[in-house]
């Protein structure tokens, strides 16, 4: 039910126009961070205020909205943002990647390939890829202007000198259409190849840092590397213990204090879909709902309440 006390999708029309103009400029200059007048949102900075504002500016009543937090539909951040838009925009929500028209994400790209007509909205904490190398905004702006990205290569080189390989494993910088170096938000570098030539529109919103940037569909985003140290994706060398997937990004879950652990798909919709289709991993023989599964870590098994 839409909360009638708010304008459609919470933000006032003037704010949405300002955000929409910034999105269009971001689309026109892929990878360039467009400043925008980020608003106070009814959630703290760091909880996806940038992504929420971008989503609010793009939503139409006919949308199917999916919100994920590190791949999961049922974590706090995802649940609260999904409820926020159910309440203020009255949009339909879904957990199925293929069914969604707008997907707001924190730190993952869904495993299921995106399609034309979908919009992926990223929540971005620090949009400036050079920020940890050069704290001054005036300097990083000049570096983007002059296409002076040597410092980033020095950083990757120092990784190799120190660790023998590029140790950056998330928020791995990409160069967009041969021009701007862009922070893809803290997605694992496993997801980096999906940034490039994606049929969906990818929008990035950083609320606290007041920046919006974009990757139009079919846009080239090359992960930075060296000829003798080419970019490589990485994931835990296991299969999903629930659905048995060999090629999905995995979370490691500690299951007891005896060194027990399991690896599960970080993308809950992908994992659930595979299990519904009959795939099973090491521990996934019996179908468990995500709630039962979560409860299992608390020692609460179905029927356990009765037994106590």
């Amino acid at each position, binding site marked *: 039910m839409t909360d009638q006390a708010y*304008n*459609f*999708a919470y933000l006032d*029309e*003037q704010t*949405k*126009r*300002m955000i*929409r*103009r*910034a*999105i*269009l*400029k*971001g*689309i*026109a*200059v*892929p990878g*360039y961070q*467009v*400043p925008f007048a980020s608003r106070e949102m009814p959630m703290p900075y760091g909880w996806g205020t940038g992504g929420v504002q971008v989503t609010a*500016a*793009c*939503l*139409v*009543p006919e949308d199917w909205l999916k919100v994920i937090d590190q791949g999961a539909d049922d974590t706090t951040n995802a649940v609260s943002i999904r409820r926020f838009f159910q309440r203020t925009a009255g949009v339909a929500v879904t957990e199925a990647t293929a069914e969604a028209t707008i997907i707001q994400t924190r730190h993952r790209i869904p495993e299921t390939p995106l399609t034309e007509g979908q919009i992926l909205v990223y929540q971005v904490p620090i949009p400036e890829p050079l920020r940890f190398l050069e704290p001054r905004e005036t300097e990083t*702006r*000049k570096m*983007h*202007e002059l296409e002076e990205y040597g410092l980033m290569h020095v950083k990757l080189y120092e990784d190799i000198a120190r660790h023998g390989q590029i140790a950056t494993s998330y928020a791995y910088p990409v160069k967009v*259409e041969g*021009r*701007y170096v862009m922070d893809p938000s803290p997605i694992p570098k496993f997801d980096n190849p999906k940034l490039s030539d994606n*049929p969906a*529109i990818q929008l990035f919103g950083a609320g606290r840092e007041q920046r919006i940037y*974009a*990757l*139009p*569909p*079919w*846009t*080239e985003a090359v992960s930075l590397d060296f000829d003798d140290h080419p970019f490589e994706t990485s994931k835990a060398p296991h299969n999903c213990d629930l659905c048995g997937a060999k090629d999905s990004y995995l979370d490691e879950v500690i299951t007891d204090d005896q060194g027990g652990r399991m690896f599960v798909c970080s993308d809950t919709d992908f994992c659930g879909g595979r299990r519904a289709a009959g795939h099973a991993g090491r521990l996934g023989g019996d179908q468990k709902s995500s709630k039962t599964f979560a409860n299992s870590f608390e020692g609460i098994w179905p029927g356990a309440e009765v037994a106590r």
Partner: protein
Amino acid sequence: MITAPADALEGGFSEAPLQSARAFREILEAMARPGTIRRVQGARPPEPLSVAAGVALLVLTDPTTRLHLAGAADCPAVRDWVAFHIGAPLTAAEDADFAVGTWDALQPVTRFRIGQPDYPDRSATLIVEVDRLVNHGPALTGPGIETATWLILPETAAFRANRALFPLGFDTIFTAGDRIAGLPRSTRVEAI
């Protein structure tokens, strides 16, 4: 007492939040996928503005954006309509954030803002009224286009010169009737 002509009060969105949201999605798709032609609705601007140009103005411009009305679009009816529904300050082409008019009326397009090297977003968006929009004409390639697409353009030289300025340059929205297409500065236009 000054009274605005009655018809200047008409022709805006009747349900602004929903209509502008739907229209923006069409404009976003048009700009993100250069060459695709989309339909928009909801505005009834005075002659000579098309429905699509009226929608684009209602969705994107407001009192914080400077608007240039070019050629025949710079008439009392349009000025009154913009004043009532949008409130955008009217300005010379050189200062404009948005400009609307036919391609001929917008000439020379080199006078529009192309942004600054450190802030390429501070550039003009041209809303160009054309007679028709069809996917036939010079080939377009670049971001948003999988392989190549085709779009009728008033000319190619100006857009090729604009692309050469990348990441600077103006962005273009073409409008014809209720149809709309985008040509951001990032698009490479085939020489014909």
